[in-house]
């Protein structure tokens, strides 16, 4: 594709191809392309920037952080590189270094929705929900329909424990971006949290189909597929309503029958409930193992 006819390639076409590959979510090939750059272009800020985006896409965080630092060294402060550095440092478990990078970025571009959302996510992980809310609000004021704003609002609602709201925003996200795999993935996972097994599988399957390179989507789709297995049909109420409501319902039935003087029926209901508990404890791991083996084999 490049460089066969001898002399060193000039930078610009390589950069263009790398950008196109990144846009098509093919970071591995973008890296290969960038490796063809002549030495003078290979150490440019632009090369480090594109390499950093590719490495972040591949979740190779230590290298992504290095590429971001090299890019900042070569080209000076840049909001997007600082955002990438912040993300990489967060993934590497250095929240304070991540915060420094993101704040440096925000000092340059205080209204950048991507940076504001990246910082909001860091605050969520640090359990600072209030500050995260204000950051997301500020980002939404700049660009209410940016995908990153939708994703951050969903994550924030989920982290606050408001699953219904998270799912509602995810529906909005899918309605605005019907082609966006992340939107489908978020609708799928917020449905899974609410125990809506069918919606969860359909959302995550669409995400995995639209972005075949994303390992996370494939894994989640697989989990959703397991949850929708017919053998797990009996435990869906527990997923749907949570343990508290299911147990209350069971106890109302068991003790209600007894209070009505139907001792035998109450005993039967209690026995069935016991069997159900054992079933919900033993069967799911078996189904998981079985489906996984068939999936890979």
């Amino acid at each position: 594709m490049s460089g066969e006819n001898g002399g060193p390639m000039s930078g610009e076409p390589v950069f263009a191809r790398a950008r196109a590959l990144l846009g098509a979510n093919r970071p591995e090939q973008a890296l290969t392309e960038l490796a063809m750059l002549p030495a003078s272009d290979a150490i440019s800020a632009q090369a480090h920037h594109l390499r950093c985006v590719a490495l972040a896409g591949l979740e190779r965080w230590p290298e992504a952080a290095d590429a971001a630092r090299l890019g900042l060294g070569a080209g000076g402060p840049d909001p997007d590189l600082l955002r990438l550095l912040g993300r990489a440092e967060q993934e590497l478990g250095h929240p304070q270094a991540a915060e420094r990078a993101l704040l440096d970025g925000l000092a340059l571009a205080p209204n950048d929705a991507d940076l504001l959302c990246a910082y909001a996510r860091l605050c969520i992980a640090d359990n600072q929900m209030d500050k995260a809310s204000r950051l997301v609000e500020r980002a939404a004021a700049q660009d209410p329909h940016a995908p990153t704003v939708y994703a951050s609002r969903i994550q924030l609602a989920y982290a606050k424990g408001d699953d219904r709201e998270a799912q509602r925003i995810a529906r909005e996200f899918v309605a605005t971006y019907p082609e966006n795999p992340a939107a489908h993935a978020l609708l799928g996972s917020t449905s899974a949290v609410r125990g809506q097994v069918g919606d969860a599988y359909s959302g995550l399957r669409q995400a995995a189909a639209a972005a075949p390179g994303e390992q996370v989507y494939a894994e989640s789709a697989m989990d959703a597929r397991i949850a929708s297995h017919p053998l797990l049909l009996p435990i869906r109420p527990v997923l749907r309503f949570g343990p508290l409501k299911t147990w209350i319902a069971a106890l109302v039935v068991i003790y209600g029958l007894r209070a009505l003087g139907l001792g035998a029926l109450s005993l039967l209901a209690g026995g069935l409930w016991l069997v159900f508990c054992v079933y919900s404890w033993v069967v799911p791991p078996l189904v998981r193992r079985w489906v996984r083996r068939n999936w890979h084999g």
Partner: protein
Amino acid sequence: MTDDLFTPTVRERPVSGKRPWRPESIFYAAFFGGPLTAGLLGVINGRRLGVPAPRVLLTALAGLAGFGAWIVSAATLVDANNAVRLVGSITGALAWLVVIAFQRAPFRAYTYGDGEPAKLFLPGLLTALGLGFFQAATILVVAR
């Protein structure tokens, strides 16, 4: 409006921190082990999650209050051992509601950060058994 928005506020994660349990799972231990089980597991988990001290204290108080209510009701419910057991489960579940109210959000924040929760099965079972016997014995001595 901008106040602390652009100043550093993120804390370094404690290095030797023990992994927390999934707060939803504490329900089962609380159901079978009564309110003190909910309180004790809630306090330990709250500390692992870095829940503010007043809330950890409230979790402990919820467990103790549940146990108090259980003793009182055991003294009033004249002769129905089944009902006394049921009250233990109900007060346990109520104490768990306090645990989940304080710990769901910090736990989800934790899973954003590094992920995997610790397994509650064995510690939960042992606590439920130990404190279950303790509570039953106390009720037997005090209220029956």
